[in-house]
């Protein structure tokens, strides 16, 4: 028997509340999911292009918009400069827009995200490239095939590269002079590099650190792995892509090309990977380089330009950066990364990826072509804030004001070392990068920490690579 004093009236009232709540829940469940696109005025029929905010200031955005409007007055263009600390942060914000139902039509994507976007969100550009082959001949003739290959995934092309940056080695000229060292030759070795750091340290004083590096996927440990003829993940090439190589590149340049890179089995416990970590740990022990947590891009320009750092890996983007920081064109210079077992170098490239959700795919393709035009890139990258993907744009005139003296190094990296490749960035790149950064910090705590940390890195990488993205 239930001991209750529920009256009939109360029973009816609670019954009505329950029915009302059930009706509300049922109505809500039966509705289509509301998204950001349902906000009135949000979708004004524009072609929406998302770019990395810090790389595209107001001037660059105006340049892009004005140039495109001249060519395509019928296509309304909106450029959404997303503010982000780095590429990983940028992709997180773009994916949040995708989740909110306000995905842009085009996203500026660097190597870090090429495969993630290609696999899950992107549209292959193959059919448009084949259709407009005659128009694009001039573009491909001006762009190194390695950059194009880095934008391919499983045989299809997903982006036209517009910029790239290889990790070359920058020197503060004043520090070199103070150490009594000569500018190193192009074929310098890892031992030359170590000797140079020791010379710098000897003459630099207590508050000077010869080598500064940032713990990240691009320009951190990876260039040393490449120089030691290894990689974080086993690297191979996907089949396919012959339609592109045969159509646009001469036989000499298409040899060995495939349908894009594949990064699969983790190899953090490989002997050569251990050698790299042992080497970096020894540099830290000897006070020749910063710890991984110590270096970051935010204060790098400051400490480099004031001579508290002598050497650091950076790309063509630093020519403009150092100039803006007040360094004279002869205050710094650049050379290839030193040779270890090889002199293979790493780079990252970027271009526009077309999203599957776009309802304006043909218009988006027109923007992709426009963004890769020579005149567009010339105006867009006038301040040397990056290395243009078009070889013809790297001229003495371009670097006359900013320096460095050895500016041809930026593009010649690709020609002189043809095996130079992109940073390892599989679709699971976010987790791979996180694992790399975390265990690099632990591994370099002391020379004894290297092996245990690399074993943990291997385990975590294996888990990350097994995970479906």
């Amino acid at each position, binding site marked *: 028997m239930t*001991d209750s004093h529920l*009256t009939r009236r109360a029973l009816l009232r609670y019954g009505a509340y329950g029915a009302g709540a059930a009706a509300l829940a049922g109505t809500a469940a039966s509705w289509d999911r509301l998204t950001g696109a349902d906000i009135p005025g949000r979708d004004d029929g524009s072609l929406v292009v998302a770019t990395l905010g810090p790389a595209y200031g107001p001037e660059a955005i105006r340049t892009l918009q004005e140039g495109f409007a001249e060519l395509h007055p019928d296509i309304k263009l909106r450029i959404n400069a997303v503010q982000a600390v780095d590429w990983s942060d940028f992709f997180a914000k773009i994916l949040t827009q995708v989740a909110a139902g306000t995905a842009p039509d085009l996203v500026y994507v660097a190597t870090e995200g090429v495969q993630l976007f290609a696999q899950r969100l992107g549209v292959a550009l193959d059919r448009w490239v084949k259709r407009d082959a005659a128009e694009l001949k001039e573009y491909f003739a001006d762009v190194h095939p390695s950059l194009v290959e880095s934008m391919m995934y499983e045989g299809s092309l997903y982006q036209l590269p517009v910029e790239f940056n290889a990790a070359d080695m920058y020197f503060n000229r004043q520090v070199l002079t103070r150490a009594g060292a000569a500018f190193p030759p192009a074929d310098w070795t890892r031992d030359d590099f170590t000797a140079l750091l020791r010379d710098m340290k000897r003459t630099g004083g207590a508050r000077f650190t010869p080598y500064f590096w940032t713990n990240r996927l691009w320009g951190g440990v990876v260039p040393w792995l490449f120089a030691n003829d290894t990689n974080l993940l086993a690297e191979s090439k996907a089949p396919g892509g012959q339609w592109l190589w045969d159509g646009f590149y001469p036989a000499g340049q298409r040899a060995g090309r495939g349908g894009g890179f594949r990064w699969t089995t983790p190899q953090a416990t490989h002997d050569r990977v251990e050698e790299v970590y042992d080497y970096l740990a020894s540099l830290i022990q000897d006070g020749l380089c910063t710890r991984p*947590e110590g270096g970051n891009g935010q204060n790098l320009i400051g400490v480099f330009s004031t001579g508290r750092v002598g050497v650091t890996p950076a790309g063509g983007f630093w020519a403009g950066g150092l100039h803006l920081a007040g360094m004279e064109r002869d205050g710094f210079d650049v050379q290839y990364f030193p040779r270890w077992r090889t002199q293979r170098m790493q780079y990252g490239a970027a271009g526009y990826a077309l999203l599957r959700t776009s309802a304006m795919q043909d218009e988006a393709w027109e923007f992709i072509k426009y963004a890769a035009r020579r005149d567009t890139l010339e105006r867009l990258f006038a301040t040397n804030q990056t290395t243009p993907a078009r070889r013809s744009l790297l001229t003495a005139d371009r670097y006359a004001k900013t320096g460095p003296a050895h500016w041809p190094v930026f593009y010649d990296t690709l020609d002189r070392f043809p095996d130079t490749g992109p940073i390892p960035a599989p679709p699971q790149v976010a987790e791979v990068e996180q694992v790399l950064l975390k*265990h690099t910090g632990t591994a370099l705590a002391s020379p004894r920490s290297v092996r245990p940390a690399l074993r943990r890195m291997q385990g975590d990488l294996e888990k990350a690579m097994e995970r479906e993205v």
Partner: protein
Amino acid sequence: MTNTRIPPARAARPEPSPPPAPRRPPARDRGTRLLATLFLAPTIVGIVVFTVVPIAGSVGLSLFHWNVIDSPSYAGLSAYGEVLGDETVLVSFRNTLVFMVFAVALQLLVALTLALAVNGRMPVWLRSVFRSAFFFPLVLSAASISVVMKYLFNQDFGVINWLLGLVGVAPVPWLTSENAAMATVVLVYVWQQFGFSFLLFVGGLNNIPKEIHEAAALDGATGLRKHLTVTLPLLSPTLLVASVVGIINALQVFEQPYVLTNGGPGDSTRTVVMVIYETAFEQLRFGEASAVGVLLFVLIMAVTALQFRLSRRFVHYQ
């Protein structure tokens, strides 16, 4: 409740008279109730929309695998099993608890000490200056403070090591050694956060009647003894509020470790909210991230409930 057996003693009692039928309240009371409901409605709607629904949504999402791009797929409780078997998640909970203990203890100690000092004898204008100065860091952005602190604590180029170097101290790895990094994150957090507890304590101290202190002084209680036996017991309700708020905030710490150390070296400063962010927005595992969020919610509720339980013994209301 269903009765299956009736004890004889109770059965011998006379049958209780049925309760009177509920009567409709008079029309004036109904109007007052309606008015009260209308006034409360915005708050209730706000709490439901911005607190209850997100919590329910998070619990619901923790039962699905969702990567933003594809439709969510039901996964039951597998996300909980996955995150509880993930070493990084467990380490982050341990770090967060360690952080909470040291940060809250230091925050309360600093705030209370300064509040007692400011409440002592000093000109009114100077008291105002101190109150504003101690509260000021709280109104600044935690992220921007952390960026500045990152420069200051840099092992190779930071001002703090430079100053220490002037007196012959070797560079301290503030952010680059596992033990020092957590201590530095705690210091930066406390520096910014103690202003809130400080203001609470100043208010609480002002509410203690002066007569009690005078009586204690007549009884011979002075200095530290007076504070321990008189001030602290009377301030205990404020201490409870400050510690509850402090613990809840500390368990949700994100900006300082994210900017200062990015969770490193290794995982030594990785906190639970950092793991939620990384799992959701970098690895696109929203179900697992929600599961971690739900576990953190349960932890916060448990710690807060424990605090209120203990407060019955230690908190004295006047």
